[in-house]
């Protein structure tokens, strides 16, 4: 069989394969450089940025390991839009694949400002982080509400021609309706899931283990819950879906794709294996070959219920 075609398209962003790095996992990409060929991946989603730099949550601690997962409360520490454009984006683009910027703000206009500044850059798409559980204002406060999510999406839509991808929180009753609201407001794709709200308690000290009190659960632990939500959303919208949550290996990625995701993003797994994304690309290719499937897009949503 000829080599299978791994290409997928998210809005106007053509990807050589469906594997991305999830936002916030590897910062702006510079620190991981050299530990894997990130240019080989479909897209790199950079750490969420805000208009102004943010210091994030207080430390001690910001992360804690849990069974098959981790809880983080970084709190959107980021260099801010200007430093991002000046210092970070050029290096990220040098990886040689699609770079997706992730943005957040306290108000719809805060999001739109970031999007406007990114419109003239070479980022391939913009992810709209309305799902960060670790900030008091903005973030998940938008994502838990379909209307607020749509409002942010519409504001960003008006600010840029780039493909825009609202990123949803799983901490809602009806994620499909949030996705539909975003789709109606002009989203080119939907990505999910961000982390599950979580808390870990230091039993000896009778305090939260994270200084911020609460955080977000990621990693293999959440995979079945994330696949469920991706399937729900893929059934509900026409635009492509980017699936994530606990992907560790190609089998995991294929679960999301078969459930309806056109692309997937790898997060926590990168901390164990900086080459997890590359490993997964290889595994998907092997699967397609073994099953005689010509293109990965034939697999998207191919689940038989």
């Amino acid at each position, binding site marked *: 069989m000829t080599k299978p075609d791994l290409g997928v398209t998210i809005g106007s962003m053509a990807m050589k394969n469906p594997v991305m790095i999830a936002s916030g996992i590897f910062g702006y990409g510079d620190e991981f450089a050299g530990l894997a060929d990130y240019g080989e991946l479909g897209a790199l989603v950079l750490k969420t940025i805000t208009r102004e730099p943010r210091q994030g949550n207080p*430390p001690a601690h910001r992360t804690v390991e849990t069974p098959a*997962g981790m809880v983080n409360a970084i709190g959107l520490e980021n260099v801010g839009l200007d430093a991002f454009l000046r210092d970070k984006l050029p290096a990220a683009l040098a990886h040689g694949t699609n770079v997706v910027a992730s943005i957040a703000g306290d108000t719809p206009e805060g999001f739109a400002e970031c999007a406007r500044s990114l419109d003239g850059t070479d980022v391939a798409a913009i992810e709209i982080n309305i799902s960060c559980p670790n900030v008091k204002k903005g973030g998940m406060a938008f994502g838990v509400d379909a209307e607020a999510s749509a409002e942010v999406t519409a504001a960003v839509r008006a600010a840029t021609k780039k493909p825009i991808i609202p990123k949803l929180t799983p901490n809602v009753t009806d994620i499909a309706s949030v996705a539909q609201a975003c789709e109606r407001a002009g989203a080119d794709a939907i990505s999910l899931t961000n982390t599950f709200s979580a808390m870990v308690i230091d039993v000896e000290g009778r305090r939260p283990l994270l200084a911020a009190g609460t955080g977000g659960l990621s990693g293999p632990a959440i995979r079945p819950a994330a696949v469920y939500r991706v399937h729900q959303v893929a059934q509900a919208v026409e635009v492509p879906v980017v699936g994530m949550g606990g992907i560790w290996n190609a089998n995991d990625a294929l679960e999301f794709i078969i459930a309806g995701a056109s692309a997937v993003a790898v997060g926590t797994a990168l901390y164990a294996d900086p080459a997890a994304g590359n490993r997964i690309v290889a595994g998907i290719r092997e699967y397609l070959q073994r099953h005689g499937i010509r293109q990965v897009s034939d697999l998207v949503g191919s689940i038989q219920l």
Partner: protein
Amino acid sequence: MSEPHTSPPPGTQAPSGSGPLRLQAEVLESERVAANHRRLLLRAPQIVTTAQPGQFLHIWCHPPEEIDRPPSAALLRRPYSISRLRPPDGVEILLRVRGNGGRLLAAKAAGESLDIIGPLGHGFRISPGLSLAVIVAGGIGLAPVSFLVERLGGLGVRVILLAGAETDEKIPFRVERPQAGGATLPEMEALGAEVTFVSESVEGVRITEVVQARLDELPGEGAAMFAVGPRAMLKRLAEIARGGLPLQVSLEERMACGLGACRSCVVPARSADGASYKTVCRDGPVFDASEIDWERLTP
């Protein structure tokens, strides 16, 4: 000496610019060195040629070939200091067995391999004029000390090691208590250090008290202090040393990436531009005491 070390001052032994490597290191030896403590000798020639004292390795605790399978316990890598180099190709780590990660590493036998990333972070800076190094180490903080002592010795620097622990069992070295004089660590003496060891349970004093008592003996010129140990000890030292000896401290914090990307392992920093957190994994683990905002540093 107290400049931020993102651009190391000239003459300083800076980590090579080549960036961290990921490699499979064979376990050459695994040995119990004390209750609950093990020494692992790894084959990692690439680390030997670039590592600086104070840098660490970020270690996947499961078999390298199981990287494709998500583990429950020890999902993240674990940071361990480079304890000593054994040229041409050996790298030692000393580990205190705490939880799942340490347990898995302690169970590794010679012949097995570890998936490591390193050398990581910024190590101790040794300024050219240094003539006396006072190393203060508490408990498992002794892990990176051999490497530092050897390096200092090689540069002709006199080394005083003041080490302490709650009990003798809480360090990865053998304690000796000769008839005359105080307790000592023969392995550290063999490396050329002048050693004082105190155990709270035997000598009944803390190492910080020893440091305080001996501060006056020390020359003002050409001396510097290097400290590794629990935060409470480091905090106390920062007070003691304030305005006196230049002090470098090695800090620990929970990590995910180990590379400076995820912003997990931050500590509150003092800096002109108001950016208030630095990463232990990349800006540290060794910081100049003046870089740290000691008030805000939680114990």
